[in-house]
Each structure stands twice: as structure tokens, then as C-alpha cells.
């Protein structure tokens, strides 16, 4: 891929500087992972525009994340480890009890994630597995924050699940083969208050992804929208709407109260 060459030919400090200029107004660079400390391997996807957009979305939502006080955070498909390291760094102050998990189907990526985390002095538990296979039973309903930069590039279906770096980008028809497998897994893992942040491409039909998630009870919002030379990216945040029964403060349960308030208000005003 072209960007692999670009990244290698640039001095890592230059890339950090480029990042720093993009974020100059926010002055938050020290709150995220540094490119020069990110480990690499020929079979592992290097941090690129999509990774930067995802980290920028997390930074933009950092105050909310700190207020939420997540217990478990997880990245599905951590690749170089740039995103999970950034999340751990930005939440380190003010959220010290949080524990991090990172998974990747590519063993080289799992090791690269470990090296990147170590270089930044932060920790995540790394599991080499397909999505969250093996964690689903015990971690169900316990993960407060999930971040995913999925393989979203439209490709022939038979490229999905290939070994090595191909697994980091090959997304099959409309780039949706893996995304559509991730959504139910995330639904099962997320806690009641849990949030998902996911990278999507316009070609993935993000509005359809949002309506699929809506059917499972999630509201959504675009946190970051970014067009690069090659692609148009959306970082979407999903959270449970709490409209289902069993949720005490549900939107529906507010109705009787609302009508009571209305009728009493009407009496007082003499209408």
C-alpha cells in the first residue's frame, strides 16, 4: 500500500509534527500515543488517516469518557496498538482503575500492539483471536468502551480472512463482511452504559449500519467526519437508548409522568 511507503520514508518525528499541526488548537498531543514509539512489522497495518480519525474522535469525547469512568475498555483488531495505547494514555489521569483488552486475529499484530503499549508505559491485556472469540461468555455485558477500526475496504469476498496484513483491510462486498460480524459481538459485550466507537467508510453505507444498530436498541452520532484523498471516513459513536423495558429511566416510562404534569399544569393555569 502506498501509505506504508510514505510512513517509512518520513522521519517519525515529522509525522508526529504533522499530527501536532492538525491538532495544534487542541494541544492534546501529549495525551495520545506517539508515532515514533509505535512498533511496526511488515504484516501489520501502520497508523494511518483512519487510525488518526478514530483517536481524534476519542479525544473529542474524552471528557465524556472520563465522566463515564469505564471499568473495561476493549479494542477489537488493535493492529499496531496505536489506538488502544492512545485510549489508555488519554484516560490514565482520572480513570486509573480502567482495564484494557486488545484483540487481533493476526499474531504479528498482537505482538506489535504489545510492543507499542510497552513503549508508552501503558498496559492492555492482548488476546490473539477472531474478534472477541473466547471472551464472549464471561465478558458479556461488562465492557464499557469498545473501539473498532474494522477492515472496511470493499474487496472480493474471498480476500476476507486472509492471513497477515490483508486481514486488516479486506472487507468483502461493500466492506461489510467483517463489520456485520462485529456488530452482534459488540452488542453482546457492551454494558448497559457502554459505548462503541467505529470507523466506517461511505462505501460501507454507514446509515444502514446505524439502522441495524437501532434495531438492536442503539442511538448513534457521527463524532468525526473526514475526507482524505482516498476515502471519506465517519467515526460513529453508538450507545444504548434505554427505551427497552426493564430500564428504570426509559423514555417510554416518562410518558405517564409527562401527561400528569401536563394535566396538573393545565389545572393551575385554569385552562
Amino acid at each position: 500500500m502506498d501509505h506504508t511507503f510514505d510512513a517509512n520514508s518520513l522521519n517519525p518525528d515529522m509525522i508526529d509534527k504533522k499530527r501536532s499541526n492538525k491538532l495544534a488548537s487542541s494541544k492534546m498531543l501529549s495525551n495520545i500515543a506517539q508515532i515514533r514509539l509505535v512498533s511496526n512489522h511488515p504484516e501489520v497495518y501502520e497508523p494511518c488517516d483512519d487510525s488518526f480519525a478514530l483517536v481524534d474522535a476519542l479525544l473529542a469525547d474524552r471528557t465524556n469518557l472520563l465522566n463515564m469512568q469505564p471499568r473495561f475498555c476493549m479494542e477489537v483488531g488493535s493492529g499496531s496498538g496505536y489506538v488502544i495505547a492512545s485510549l489508555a494514555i488519554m484516560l490514565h489521569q482520572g480513570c486509573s482503575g480502567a482495564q484494557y483488552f486488545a484483540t487481533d486475529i493476526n499474531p504479528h499484530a498482537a505482538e506489535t500492539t504489545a510492543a507499542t503499549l510497552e513503549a508508552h508505559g501503558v498496559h492492555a491485556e492482548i488476546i490473539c483471536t477472531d474478534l472477541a472469540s473466547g471472551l464472549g461468555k464471561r465478558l458479556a455485558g461488562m465492557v464499557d468502551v469498545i473501539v473498532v477500526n474494522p477492515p472496511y475496504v470493499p474487496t472480493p469476498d474471498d480476500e476476507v480472512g486472509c492471513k497477515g496484513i490483508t486481514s486488516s483491510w479486506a472487507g468483502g462486498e461493500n466492506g461489510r463482511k467483517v463489520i456485520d460480524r462485529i456488530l452482534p459481538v459488540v452488542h453482546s459485550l457492551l454494558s448497559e452504559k457502554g459505548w462503541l466507537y467505529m470507523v466506517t467508510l461511505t462505501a460501507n453505507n454507514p446509515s444502514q449500519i446505524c439502522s441495524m444498530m437501532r434495531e438492536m436498541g442503539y442511538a448513534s452520532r457521527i463524532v468525526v467526519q473526514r475526507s482524505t484523498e482516498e476515502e471519506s471516513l465517519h467515526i460513529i459513536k453508538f450507545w444504548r437508548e434505554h427505551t427497552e423495558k426493564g430500564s428504570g429511566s426509559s423514555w417510554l416510562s416518562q410518558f405517564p409522568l409527562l401527561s400528569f404534569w401536563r394535566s396538573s399544569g393545565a389545572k393551575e393555569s385554569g385552562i
Partner: protein
Amino acid sequence: MRLLTHNMLSCNIKGVKNGYPLRLEAEKWTEKEVDFNAKFLRGIFPKIDWPALVGSARSFGFNDLLPDEAPDSSLLASDDDLLRRFHHALLEIHVEEGGLVCPETGRRFPINKGIPNLLLHEDEV
């Protein structure tokens, strides 16, 4: 891999019903200091499978670190020593090399450089 993770992992082979807890075979392990956070520990306690945690700690020779029976959660609020031992078992023991063995099938998942590998063979999916 910390024992917290061991506590959360099950065998993922298709059709396996009793894939938990995985038997821990630790060939190389270390102890690393981790920031103590009482709030996290008390919050996570009800979610931990206590016998699995005690069993995994024993596999390192920590026979008396934790009581056999899960303590009452009120004890964790008052007994700082117990909370610190729970902290040590859950977060400060790191398995570097070894394996996780499924209790039903005997399938061994390797742990290399601290990373458990749960990737399945084609006939296991």
C-alpha cells in the same frame, strides 16, 4: 496475561459446553506491580469466578493467597489485607509463556510472550 484475563477466557471451539475454566499451565511467569485501585476491585469482585481465580493462583504455588470460599463482599470493604491479596492475584501475576487447556477437549491454546492464542483450526470453527 494476567489472571483477570484467564478468569474471562473460555474455550471457543464449536460445540464445546464445558470449556471453563481453562487449565493454566505456566512455564514462565513474573510478578509486576500494578496501581492499587480499591474501587475497581470492589466493583469487579462480583464478576470474578472465585474458584477459577483461586485455582489459577494455586498453579503458581500461591496456596494461601486467597481463601477457598469466595468472601462476602462486605469483607472486601473492611479487610484491606484481603483486598490487596485479591489485587495481587488478579492483576500482578503475569504469565509470559505457557498454555491454556480446555477441560472438555484437552485442546491446548499456547501463551507466547504474554499473549494467549485462541485462534482455531478450520475443523474447530
